[in-house]
């Protein structure tokens, strides 16, 4: 049962990204997995399979990522709240009002928390006073997946999403110790009484399992954008797409703007980029 659902999710997301019956995603990822292969064959991509410790490996397949443009969030202070609310609603995230047990997928934090390795000495005012969007980085080399003893958290080969199998997780919380970004939450008690409005399209979780942002894998499979991206539609605050596709919107933005990733020195290769 478990395995079937996992396989279904994998296949569903891959087919969605390949553009079969998913018009919205076709635009996001243009020619999907095939595009990057063409590039590699034409010799535009780095020649070696592995670029070694000083760079990312040559792109292979689809790698979903996100650019968070903080300038847009500063212009429109309500935008981030809308995105968070959309995420909470879509994923039945319990609203537990205590920092000890709270569940967070997408949330707000100050610059010094999100980028503790960056200096905030005499930082520009808009950096000091802005709440940054924080979510799972969907690392290309995720320490949580390495640590999990049951493969309950795993990388979906077709799109690079770090997903969770809530029915396999034993609740050892090794992944929480392993994640250098604090992206994971644990259900210290039954979350269901804390769900404000129930969305029947996404499973609720039981106590004793870990959860986190899933890049809306379930929505991608239906050809929809992630809930937070949809909430920011038209503003360009959150741009989502295939990092390996040179023609994708996200790549055009990355090529144009200077972006930073959270603590990239750890070698985890985060797939979430920030324009400060």
């Amino acid at each position, binding site marked *: 049962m478990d395995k079937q659902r996992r396989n279904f999710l994998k296949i569903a997301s891959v087919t969605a990204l390949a553009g079969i019956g998913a018009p919205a995603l076709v635009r996001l990822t243009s020619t999907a997995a095939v595009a990057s292969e063409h590039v590699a064959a034409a010799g535009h991509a780095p020649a070696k399979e592995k670029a070694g410790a000083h760079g990312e490996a040559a792109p292979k397949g689809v790698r979903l990522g996100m650019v968070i443009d903080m300038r847009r969030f500063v212009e429109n202070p309500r935008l981030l709240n809308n995105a968070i609310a959309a995420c909470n609603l879509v994923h039945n995230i319990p609203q537990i009002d205590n920092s000890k047990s709270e569940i967070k997928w997408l949330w707000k934090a100050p610059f010094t928390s*999100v980028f503790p390795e960056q200096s905030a000495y005499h930082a520009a005012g808009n950096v000091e006073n802005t709440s940054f969007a924080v979510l799972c980085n969907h690392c290309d080399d995720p320490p949580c997946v390495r640590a999990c003893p049951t493969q309950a958290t795993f990388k979906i080969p077709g799109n690079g999403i770090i997903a969770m199998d809530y029915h396999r997780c034993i609740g050892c919380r090794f992944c929480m*110790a392993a994640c250098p970004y*604090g992206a994971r939450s644990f259900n210290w008690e039954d979350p269901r009484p804390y769900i404000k409005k129930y969305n029947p399209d996404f499973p609720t979780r039981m106590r004793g399992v870990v959860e986190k942002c899933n890049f809306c894998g379930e929505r991608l499979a239906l050809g929809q954008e992630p809930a937070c991206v949809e909430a920011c539609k038209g503003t360009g605050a959150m741009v989502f797409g295939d990092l390996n596709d040179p023609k994708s919107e996200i790549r055009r933005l990355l090529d144009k703007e200077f972006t930073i990733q959270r603590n990239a020195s750890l070698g985890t290769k985060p797939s979430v980029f920030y324009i400060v």
Partner: protein
Amino acid sequence: MIEKILRGKPAYWMWLAFLGSFIAIGAACYARQYLFGLGLTGMSRDVSWGLYISQFTFLVGVAAGGVMLVLPYYVHNYKVFGKITILGEFLAIAAIVMCMLFIMADLGQPLRAVNVILHPTPHSMLFWDMCVLIGYLSLNILCGWVILTAERKGVHPPRWIYFFVYLSIPFAVSIHTVTAMLYCGLPGRHFWLSAIIAPRFLASAFAAGPALIVIACLVLKRVANFDAGKQAMDKLVTIIMYAAMLNTFFVLLEVFVGYYSNIPGHKHSIEYLFFGLEHHGHVYNNLVPFMWTSVVLNFSALGLFSLPYVRRKNEFLLGLSCVMIFLALWIDKGLGFVFAGFVPSPLHEIVEYIPTLNELGITIGVWATGFFILTVLYKIVVGVEHEIES
């Protein structure tokens, strides 16, 4: 041999009843936790491991400490340990049972624990930890039982058992090395991300395990007329001293690296442990008194051990010193090491961990279970020993 546990003096039964009452408390607390969830503990989103995992970590060391008797006796043919090597093997059994109970108590979904076996994952250190712990437990049960049976019959142990005895030596090292690897391979946790964690764990283990055995020998001498022999005790104390000094040395190296490099991430946890960490105008320091107690106990015990009078003449002081070093190492590894690793959190917030009463109840219950098993196993050893003598 098992019948030996059924006959004992009233004090023996009272001791078991005493431990039994704590086991009952622990079981009741666990029932509450099982029904409600781990929210009954003091653990949080930021400090996601607490007393259970820290006790597990410490007790893996106690289990590995048994090898400090097995190795001299079987590899170096150090006959003086002949009578007490079995105590080390049986201590390992009790300690590993405690480790496993602590892991089970810590799981959010304990009924799914077999998933670790159903979906074996070699890139997870937890998978390997399970393998070596089960391996070491089996080896100690097998070797202890076969050798004690042979001793009772007055014959040499079968030759094949020596293969398993020798195998248990690398296994003892591996259980604590792999436990260290649970921590020291995690990016972004500066306090744990250090290659000296495994050697440091082993050093403290080789002091804590034998210290507990010395205490057990002193107790057994009084209550069960079981004399380990002065020479054996003297040698054990030497082992404890060297191991405790190495552990102290390793900890001081960590302090040097942190403060001389002046890299904030390397200093934060040490600062939090020993001086308190300031954040947004608040100083977080709930572990400071514990850590300084550990330092004082550690150096006092080392001082006492260095006096020949304490080592050879005064059993009370010897026992006291062993209790002191055991407590010092327990605070160092069984509290400070795990809790401080989560401070500050990846988002540079500081959340302090304070265990709840229910959590303490479970913890005491597991320790009582371990001592219950240890008592019963040592009762067998003493019974067999007396049978041979008479």
